[in-house]
């Protein structure tokens, strides 16, 4: 992108500068024939057989570039993952940016490259986009908004209402890596092992689907972490979720940062982890299927579903001391503390 030093208001004006930005910054990096047509809407080929799945997401991250990713990479992965965990094969994405006047051209390039890289890894195409520019001070460098379209093949029918008492829960890898990495950046903590887990999960999901296990539902735990996702699921299916403290994989550096800041890893965001609910008789097989995929090397079975009991919390943690403590919905933001 020659000579693009700073984003100006005019870049969002719809005129010459906008066209130049699209032609020189977005198109070459995003490599999408449909996008390159620059029509008012992307007219797509016919959908493959199955039910269409549609998702939308907005992305805000501080810092916008972090170990393991950036705003662009995060946006595409997040969108793809929402589709994948619903059982859909992700196909086409939109990618819109609201930029703050004065944003570094180099930073914008990083976002677009990140989005392109994620799209390539995920095997999806970014087919439509938009850019607006807001005056300086009215937007925190950049916000990204996406939509994703996929298809749920015939025979795939996932959902929280499929979950039964007795079902087991697995996670595809160590938790809390994304949230911990960004909060560590914000608080001047560094560690070579601190890296966002942000990645597109389509192929991992496919591996699990292909294994033929009785899969009930999947989720990717993002903001609010594993505990919040489990609360959402428990509420939906009316069952109780019991997590085993000693089974939940947490990386050493992640645990250290959380200890230092007083955070609970169970409530810290992941961006490239899968939570899957499977029939108990298939639990080991499901675990092996995930573990044999490169993204699932450190997967673990972390809990089970039980009948709910009145007066009891929907999600509980079984501690290593034999006690159970409730894992409530996160109330307010989880801020670093000294107490």
């Amino acid at each position, binding site marked *: 992108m020659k000579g693009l030093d700073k984003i100006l208001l005019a870049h969002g004006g719809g005129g010459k500068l906008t066209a130049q930005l699209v032609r020189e910054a977005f198109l070459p990096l995003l490599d999408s024939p449909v996008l390159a047509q620059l029509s008012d809407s992307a007219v797509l080929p016919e959908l493959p057989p199955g039910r269409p799945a549609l998702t939308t997401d907005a992305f805000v991250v501080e810092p916008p570039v972090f170990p393991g990713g950036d705003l662009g990479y995060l946006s595409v992965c997040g969108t793809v993952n929402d589709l994948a965990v619903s059982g859909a094969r992700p196909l086409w994405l939109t990618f819109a940016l609201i930029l703050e006047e004065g944003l570094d051209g180099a930073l914008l390039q990083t976002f677009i490259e990140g989005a392109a890289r994620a799209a390539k890894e995920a095997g999806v195409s970014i087919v439509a986009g938009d850019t607006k520019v807001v005056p300086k001070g009215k937007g925190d460098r950049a916000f990204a908004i996406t939509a994703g379209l996929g298809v749920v093949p015939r025979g795939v029918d996932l959902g929280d209402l499929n979950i039964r008492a007795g079902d087991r829960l697995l996670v595809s890898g160590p938790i809390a890596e994304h949230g911990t990495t960004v909060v560590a950046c914000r608080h001047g903590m560094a560690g070579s092992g601190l890296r966002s887990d942000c990645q597109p999960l389509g192929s991992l999901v496919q591996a699990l689907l292909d294994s033929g296990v009785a899969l009930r539902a999947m989720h990717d735990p993002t903001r609010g972490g594993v505990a919040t996702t489990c609360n959402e699921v428990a509420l939906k299916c009316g069952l109780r979720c019991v997590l085993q403290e000693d089974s939940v994989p947490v990386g050493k550096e992640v645990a250290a940062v959380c200890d230092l*800041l007083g955070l609970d890893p169970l409530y810290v965001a992941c961006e490239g982890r899968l939570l899957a609910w499977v029939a108990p008789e298939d639990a080991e097989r499901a675990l092996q299927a995930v573990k044999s995929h490169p993204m699932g090397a450190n997967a673990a079975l972390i809990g089970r579903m039980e009948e709910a009991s009145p007066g009891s919390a929907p999600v509980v943690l079984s501690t290593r*001391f*034999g006690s159970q*403590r409730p894992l409530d919905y996160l109330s307010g933001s989880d801020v670093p503390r000294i107490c």
Partner: protein
Amino acid sequence: MSPEERFDRSAFADPKAVFGFAERIAERAAGLERPVTFMEVCGTHTNAIAAAGLRRLLPENVRLIAGPGCPVCVTPVGYVDRASALALRPRTTVCTFGDMLRVPSSSGSLERVRAEGGDVRVVYSPRDAVEIARQNPSHTVVFLGVGFETTVPTVAAAIDEAERTGVPNFTVFSGHKVMPPPLRALASDPEVKVDGLLCPGHVSVVAGANAFAFLPEEFGLPCVVVGFMPTDVMRGVEELLRQVVEKDPSVANLYARVVTAEGNLTAQAMVAKYFVSEDQVWRGFGVIPGSGLGVRTEFGHRDAGRIEVAVCDPEEPEGCRCGEVLRGSINPPECPLFARECTHERPVGACMVSSEGTCAAWYRHERLRLGVSG
């Protein structure tokens, strides 16, 4: 044992050791003439105990109750009202530890004030606030000084840094408090029946184990100084039982790996340089003489308490029994608002807001046992 092994914290949480102490506690408790009640003074202890579910490992005749060692819980509504007014003042930035963000004021909280346009920033260290002041010379930066002996030295050191490196716009709104006076008040109060104290481990790192010597010496109260790992707490309970059964009250320092008898003299000197003892209001206790620390007059330019802001008389929430909870007179479920009108999402009193407020800790970790829904 390699240094890494010696400092591997997980060893201090070994379940087998915890269960071993539970057995030893049960053996000693069998020799008790009557049930005993021990108070864990520090909110961090309350949380650690609840998080590990240690209460269920104790015999029926050994009860643990939580005391007033939660600095956020004991911060009066008037302080938060003033802090909120400061945050809304032009060209003023309020910096605070995250713990204070959701403490209820008369009309909301600092989190709400931020949403209304007040400049409120969460920092991890008082040094971060000095840095913010350095980078924003046109703003008055007010650091909310909340915390006990563990934290006051860090705030004093931040003032020191601002003095030495020329950051005139860094100020502190002190709500700092010290532990011995309320403990003395508790020990002298005939209504409060406590047979021993688990003393705050990190306060002791600064103040020294000797800071609590008056409790066994003047009141015959058994005390232990313990750390925050599950094995530390269980070991502490066992030692308290020994002191009770053998009628041998003392301050047993079971956290000698970081606590000394005299404490951290450098830190104490730093505090003495910038702060002076004063009377302060404790939520639920009223004024306790000599229980607080104010910025010394000679450093009045660092004292945000002197900044003129308009605040109304503070309102204490209706029906809230935080004071009795803090005093150890009742447990959270005995407050009519607990887990009903007063929840983690909608806290009435500060005991529910702080992540380790007694009520918050109970609400989060122990509702299961009580069968309280909601």
